C-alpha cells in the first residue's frame, strides 16, 4: 500500500469543542463529536441547535427551583457491557395517571464507536436501553420482538419537563409522546409515538448498585421503591420447578410408605382379654401378662387396647418390661367413649379403641405389667390388649408431606405477591383479594 503515495487526508477531526451560548455567553461543551442535534445551555436553559455553528436558539424553558440535578453528572464515564460510555444528556419526563404525576429520568450515553445508549431511572429502578433496529410486531395487548413475547403494561402520554446536555434528536420541553411499555421481565419493549414517527427501544432491568459500580459514583444508589414493570422476580420461574419437585417427592413418599407397610411384620405377638372390676374389695389391681417374644431387629411395638366402654372410661397404666435386661417402657392410656343426642343431632366423643406405638424396642423376652383404673361405681368393663411387632408409623409420612408442601406454598405465595405488586402499577391491575385496602 505504501508505494510512495502520501498519507491519506481525513476530514478534520471534531474535538470536544468549547463554544459559547448565543443567549447568555456561557461556555457550551459538546461531547458527542457531531452526533448531537440539540444541546442545552445549563446557565440560561436555552435549547440550541448543535449542528449550527452559531448554535441558534430553538427554545427557552423555565426551571423550577425544586428541580433535582442528575444522579450521574454529565461527562461521567462508565463501563456498560464492556464498553465505555460518557453521559452527554439528561432529561426528566413525566406521565399523569388518575391525576397523579409520576416522574422519571433518562440519561443519554455516548461512545464514538458504538453510538448512543440510554439509562432510565424511576424510584431507584434502572433500565439499560437501546433503540431497536428491527420492528417488533404488535398484537392484542402484547408485542413480539426477536422471538420473545412481551405483555402490554401501560400506555400513557409522556411529557418532557426538563433537559440538560446533548441529544441526538430535536428535543423540546413540554413535548408530548405516547409511550407504551410491554414487559417480559427482565426486559421491556417500549414504543414512543409522535405525530411523525414511532421509535421502538429495548430495555433491560439494571440494579442501582451495578450502575454505581459502572460509573464509580460516590455514595449509594437510591433505594428502589415498590416493584418495577420489568424488575426480575427473585422467585420467578423456580415456582413451576418447585411444584414439579414436590410432586416427585410426594410420589416417592407414597412409594416409601407402601414399601414400609408391605415389609413391616405387623405380627401379633400377644392378644388377651380381661375384665376390669373397679371398686372390688381392695386388692392389687395391677397384674402381669405372660412373657412373649419380640423378634427381629430393633423396631417399634404397637399396643392396642380395645374396651367396650359405653359412655364410660377406663385408664390403663402400662409398662412393657424386658424380662432379661430389666428395661421398661412406661405409659398410660385412656379409653373412653361417650355419645348421645342433643338439639344439634347425635354426637360422640372418644373411641373404644386406643393404640400407642412404643419406639425402638430391641428384640427379647417381654411382658406387660398392667394397672387398670376406672370409675368405681361403674359395672365391669371388658377389654383386650393386643401387641404387634413392627408397624409403619403413618404420622411420619404425614409430617413429611406437610414439610414438603409448606415451603412450596410459601414460595408460591411470595411469587404471587411480587407479581401482584408489579402489575398493580400497570393498566391491568390485579383484582383485589378479600377486603384489603391497597
Amino acid at each position, binding site marked *: 500500500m505504501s508505494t510512495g503515495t502520501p498519507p491519506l487526508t481525513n476530514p478534520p477531526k*471534531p*474535538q470536544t469543542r468549547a463554544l459559547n451560548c448565543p443567549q447568555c455567553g456561557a461556555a457550551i461543551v459538546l461531547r458527542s463529536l*457531531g452526533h448531537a442535534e440539540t444541546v442545552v445551555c445549563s446557565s440560561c436553559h436555552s435549547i440550541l441547535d448543535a449542528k449550527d455553528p452559531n448554535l441558534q436558539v430553538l427554545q427557552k424553558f423555565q426551571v423550577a427551583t425544586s428541580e433535582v440535578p442528575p444522579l450521574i453528572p454529565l461527562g461521567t464515564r462508565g463501563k456498560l457491557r464492556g464498553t465505555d460510555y460518557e453521559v452527554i444528556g439528561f432529561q426528566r419526563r413525566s406521565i399523569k395517571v388518575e391525576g397523579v404525576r409520576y416522574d422519571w429520568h433518562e440519561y443519554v450515553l455516548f461512545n464514538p464507536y458504538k453510538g448512543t445508549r440510554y439509562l432510565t431511572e424511576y424510584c431507584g429502578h434502572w433500565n439499560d436501553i437501546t433503540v431497536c433496529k428491527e420492528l417488533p410486531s404488535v398484537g392484542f395487548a402484547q408485542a413480539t420482538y426477536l422471538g420473545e413475547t412481551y405483555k402490554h403494561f401501560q400506555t400513557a402520554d409522556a411529557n418532557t419537563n426538563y433537559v440538560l446536555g446533548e441529544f441526538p434528536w430535536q428535543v423540546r420541553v413540554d413535548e408530548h409522546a405516547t409511550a407504551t411499555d410491554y414487559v417480559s421481565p427482565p426486559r421491556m419493549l417500549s414504543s414512543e409515538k409522535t405525530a411523525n414517527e414511532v421509535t421502538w427501544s429495548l430495555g433491560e432491568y439494571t440494579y442501582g448498585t451495578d450502575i454505581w459500580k459502572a460509573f464509580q459514583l460516590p455514595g449509594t444508589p437510591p433505594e428502589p421503591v415498590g416493584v418495577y414493570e420489568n424488575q426480575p422476580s427473585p422467585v420467578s420461574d423456580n415456582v413451576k420447578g418447585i411444584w414439579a419437585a414436590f410432586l416427585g417427592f410426594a410420589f416417592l413418599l407414597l412409594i416409601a410408605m407402601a414399601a414400609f407397610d408391605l415389609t413391616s411384620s405387623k405380627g401379633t405377638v400377644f392378644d388377651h382379654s380381661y375384665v376390669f372390676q373397679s371398686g372390688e374389695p381392695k386388692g392389687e389391681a395391677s397384674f402381669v401378662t405372660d412373657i412373649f417374644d419380640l423378634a427381629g431387629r430393633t423396631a417399634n411395638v404397637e399396643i392396642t387396647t380395645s374396651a367396650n366402654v359405653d359412655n364410660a372410661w377406663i385408664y390403663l397404666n402400662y409398662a412393657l418390661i424386658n424380662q432379661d435386661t430389666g428395661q421398661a417402657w412406661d405409659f398410660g392410656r385412656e379409653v373412653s367413649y361417650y355419645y348421645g343426642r342433643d338439639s344439634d343431632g347425635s354426637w360422640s366423643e372418644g373411641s373404644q379403641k386406643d393404640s400407642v406405638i412404643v419406639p425402638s424396642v430391641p428384640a427379647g423376652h417381654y411382658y406387660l405389667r398392667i394397672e387398670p383404673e376406672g370409675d368405681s361405681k361403674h359395672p365391669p368393663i371388658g377389654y383386650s390388649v393386643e401387641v404387634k411387632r413392627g408397624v409403619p408409623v403413618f404420622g411420619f409420612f404425614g409430617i413429611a408431606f406437610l414439610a414438603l408442601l409448606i415451603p412450596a406454598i410459601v414460595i408460591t405465595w411470595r411469587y404471587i405477591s411480587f407479581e401482584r405488586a408489579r402489575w398493580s402499577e400497570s393498566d391491568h391491575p390485579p383484582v383485589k383479594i378479600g377486603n384489603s385496602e391497597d
Partner: protein
Amino acid sequence: MTQPVSNCPNCGAKIVFQWSSSVQTVCQYCKSILVRTDVDLEKVGKVADLPPDSSPIQLNTEGIYRNKAFVVIGRILYEYDQGGWNEWHIVMNDGKSAWLSDAQNEYAISFATTTTGLPTAAQVQVGQQYTWNNQRYTVSVITPAHYRGVEGELPFPYWDKTQVTFADLRSETGKFATLDFSDEQPALYLGEFVEFDDLKLKNLRSFEGW
C-alpha cells in the same frame, strides 16, 4: 497481484487502485475526481472538503464479515433532511465489492444484486412487500437524499448527485434491502445489520479523549 498504477492527470501524484474494478477515485493531493477510461484517468471535477463528521471508520480501515477480510477503499457521505450517513465502499478479500453503512453508529453490510422486475421510484411505496432470494421484505421508509461528498474509490462514475431516492426495506430477521434510484435503472442492494464488535475493525479513526 499487481495493482493498477497511474498518475493524476492534474497534479501528477501516483494513484494506486486497491480494487481492480474501481471506476472513479479521488486524488488525495489535489482533490480531483478521476474517472477511469480504458486508457487512462480523466479529471471530471473537484470534490469539496468533506464536512466534519464522526464515523469511526476511515479509508483503509480493515475488518471481517462472515469470515472474509475486507478493507475500506471509498466513501459516499449522504445528507437528507434529518442529517446524514456514510456509505463506505469496501472490497472483500475475494475481490467482491460491498457497502458498509454507518448511520449514527448503526452498521450494516450490503451487496449489489442483479435482479429484474424492480419497481421505479414512482412505483415504490411504504408498506409494499417484495420477495428476493426467498426472503420477504417490506418497504419501511423512502428517503430523498443527496451526495454531500465522496472520497476514495467508487464503483460507478458519479460523484455529485443532487437528488437520489432510496427505499429501505426490512425483513423480520434483521436483513434489509435498499433500492437505489440514483440511476435510470433502479439498483438493489441486499444486506443485514451487523454489530460493531462482530466486524473486528482495525485501523479505525482515533478520537481525542477516547
